């Protein structure tokens, strides 16, 4: 997948729309609008947060694994209702996406990200750093992720990952 030439040139409008999707992704999460997060995915989607060491060795175990939009909703329900965690803020900083391919209506991207975490009585720290390996499609008139794999370099996780990456 490295250095793939787009099978079809990506129109500037589409490129801008993809940029908007990532901006919306970060802003939605960092504003705490978790209920809107699953809406950025197609109904049949795959979302995983996976340590880079597993990914590179072909080991399938993920830290978070959602096999449908419904599973994303279960994660949101857990954040809101069932998990015990110290309150905190996340801040996603997402780089400009590299567009790798555009084939049969699917845009494949690779995008660096960093998530900072701020807890009470603590200095802000880097929680999670990695890259998104995504597939984006048009669905119900807007762009959505049909697949998003968060491959993280920071494999020694500081305490917990309580909110979406």
């Amino acid at each position, binding site marked *: 997948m490295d250095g793939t030439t787009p099978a079809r040139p990506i129109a500037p409008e589409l490129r801008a729309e993809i940029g908007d999707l990532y901006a919306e992704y970060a802003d939605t999460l960092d504003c705490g609008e978790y209920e809107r997060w699953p809406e950025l995915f197609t109904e049949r989607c795959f979302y995983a*947060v996976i340590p880079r060491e597993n990914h590179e060795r072909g080991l399938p*175990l993920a830290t978070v694994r959602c096999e449908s939009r419904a599973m994303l909703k279960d994660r949101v329900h857990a954040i809101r209702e069932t998990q*015990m965690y110290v309150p905190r803020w996340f801040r996603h900083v997402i780089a400009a996406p590299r567009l790798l391919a555009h084939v049969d209506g699917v845009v494949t991207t690779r995008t660096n990200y960093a998530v900072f975490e701020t807890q009470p009585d603590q200095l802000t720290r880097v929680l999670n750093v990695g890259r998104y390996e995504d597939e984006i499609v048009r669905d119900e008139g807007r762009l959505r992720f049909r697949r998003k794999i968060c491959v993280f370099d920071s494999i020694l996780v500081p305490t917990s990952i*309580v909110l979406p990456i």
Partner: protein
Amino acid sequence: MDGNTAAPAAAPAARTPWKAGDFSHVPYWIYRDQDIYAREQARIFAGPNWNYVALESEVPNPGDFKRSFVGDKPVIVTRGADGAINVLANRCAHRGVQLCQEHLGNAKEFVCPYHQWTYDLQGKLIGIPFRRGHKGNGGMPGDFDLGANGLPKLEVAVRHGVIFASFDRAVPSFEDFLGAKMLGYFDRVFDGRPLKVLGYSRQRIPSNWKLMMENIKDPYHASLLHVFLVTFGLFRMDQKSAVQMDDTGRHAVLVNRKGEQAANEATQEMRAFKADMKLADPTLLQPQREFPGDATVVMQTLWPNLIVQQQSNTLAMRQMVPRGPEAHDLLWTFFGYADDPPEMTERRLRQANLMGPAGFVSMDDSEVMMISQQGLDPYPDATAVIEMGGRDTVDADHTITEVALRAFYAHYRQVMEI
């Protein structure tokens, strides 16, 4: 083994004394004092105990190696050319450099990057550049003995694919160390079938390692803290259960049987029970029975550094690596069996959502451990109360008890002489 163990037995002078024979109160200084930490490293982790280091399936071929830890000491687990497992200190005999930096790999030999001292897979020193000097200059003394300068080798025990190591030559056999009862539970998961690693998860938790050990010896919290366990009946106090220890109290198991999501007299006291909670995607929790007997969850704590997790179909080794008195790393190795059909592997991967640093269940625990340490750390002379279920240290056929913590501290105090 290194002289630390001969230190006199006493609480630090300025600390609240720990009353002799009291296992139902624990002073908070044991979770944060540096001298306690050093004593634990010497007496417990470097003592005559079997520390979990790896699974055999991580090093299947000659030359395969894995970096691991015994207490806070880095070690290398290797499979030699003869197929046997070796566990070596990850420390060059020359100047102490940590030789091996890769988590997993394959090598013919280990070469220290600093001065290229070279060791074979058994840790034997096989080469030193300029050992004889150059044109009559330098070189090691004529009586320098390669054989006496290898990597320190640990004792090794392998049972049904699981590798343990000990710095102490006087360690008993692994089977005697576990005792018949704990060995029975161990063999329930490790029945001799080849294992297959599904992946790793690593966390640094800002709490003393003993809080992690306590957490998996404490079934009382499970019915209160964990909405997922309680609501879906994965572990709950009104279900048939048991807490059992070995004769010393250092190892334990928590056993439970899956129940229903139905309100009853017991669930009234559980705020975590949500009678109307439904998963939007129920495929997350569709466990399949796979072990003999009716237990659906067995969490085994093996002194001093291992938790064996069997919750429904999610299996993992959780290895504890102390990182100073106020932190530990929790290294998770999720696994299945080599002969698992694909749908069982999928089930294990899906249920892994319960566990690890983002787990529906385990996240609650890592967060609690962090705030436990934050709460107790400034109060070293206060004490914890561990009286649920009484003050004794005998097996229980229910989970409304902290008995396994008391048994743990009975043994801990004996080993630590505090």
